[in-house]
């Protein structure tokens, strides 16, 4: 995931499912709260296992979600909303979960 649109800014490689992105710090230059919670603005699923990655609005896989299939990318979260909540993805992703059901 990147902190800015168009795969730019700071980069975070989400290797594992992660129920709480507040655990991962980032320079406040990129995200004012200083963590990857509510920070990402673009993403690419570079996973090689074939699994998609669910991006959730809240920590603990809560709120709305959006699943990004394997080897696909979203360059601009500002035009995407979560399923189920219709809140925009931009600066709102808080947890990640890998899944074969995407």
């Amino acid at each position, binding site marked *: 995931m990147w902190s800015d649109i168009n795969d730019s800014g700071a980069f975070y490689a989400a290797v*594992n499912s992660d*129920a709480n992105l507040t655990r991962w710090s980032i320079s406040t230059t990129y995200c004012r709260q200083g963590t990857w919670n509510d920070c990402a603005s673009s993403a690419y699923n570079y996973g090689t296992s074939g699994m*998609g990655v669910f991006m959730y609005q809240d920590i603990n896989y*809560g709120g709305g979600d959006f699943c990004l299939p*394997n*080897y696909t990318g*979203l360059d601009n979260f500002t*035009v995407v909303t979560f399923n189920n909540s219709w809140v925009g993805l931009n600066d709102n992703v808080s947890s990640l979960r890998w899944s074969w059901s995407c």
Partner: protein
Amino acid sequence: MVLLAGSVGCRRAVGAVVRRVFVIIFLAVAGVGCAAQPTPRPSDRPSGAQTPTGSTDSPAALVQAADGVLVPDVNVLRGQWTLFRAQQLLVAQCMRDDGETYLITDPGPEPGTNTSTAESLGTGTHLTYGLQASPLTSAQDAYVRQLREPARTRYDQALGGPANEQASVTLPSGLVISYREGGCLGQARSRLFGSVQNAVLDSVLPQDVDKRFGKSLTQSARYKAALADWRACMARAGYTYVDPTDAINQIRLLLDGGTNPQHVGALEQAMADVDAVCDHPSRLRQVRAQELDAFLRGLPLPQLVSLADVHRARLRALDAVNRGSAVSQ
């Protein structure tokens, strides 16, 4: 929409098929060859740039097909499970042909018919949501991470094709999804779905449309009343959740949080049973289905056709896999 990568390369097509009867039959059934495929580009339709010409289905048939991809019931889950496994096998075979290692990811047991989802109830007794602990990490990804250059770049190319050749598709909402078309993954997706774009749309187009449907649901008085009844019924049984999705997510969190799986399994089963009991008087899922039907009937025809195309591509993929698997056994 810009398609930069063109058609998927067929550099491995022949080499892969001679090794396994499964793949030979699979290709024959799938009807995929190296000739250029004039694949329709469904993303054009939602933008209104093209008039759908490929479908002769009646509006009612289109709605039914669209319904088939927008209601993730147990049949959809089982289809996803089947196609994930098939894609894993195809990718692994192709990567082996390229001299690479590919560690197959096991999706776990196939969802049983007793599996309920947020949108549909399972059948039979001892209902469940079919949840498994989320995979925390992937052995396959770990294998790739330990590769050094230039082996890692070579591996990436073998799997996904040239990294600088990205295609993209624009969804009705304006959302742009980019994807790689080449390599073993592109080849597997093409064989299963007829094109890589079809495979990508299989996941993202239903999400794109479902978002708008979900928003329309929030304005449905009937649905809100049904949801209130469902919540009250669940609360009487000691379960307090916003909706079935929330209930399922909370159980998943327990699983992922390390709570004893047997304990979680018992809770999951008990909750799924109560959910089914509460669904009946509240008619929650029935009302949702009716609202979805009305929503789909109001969709612009090009979008309906695109959803029907997704449904058709998925059925084709499943048919090919099932025939291939039957031969290989």
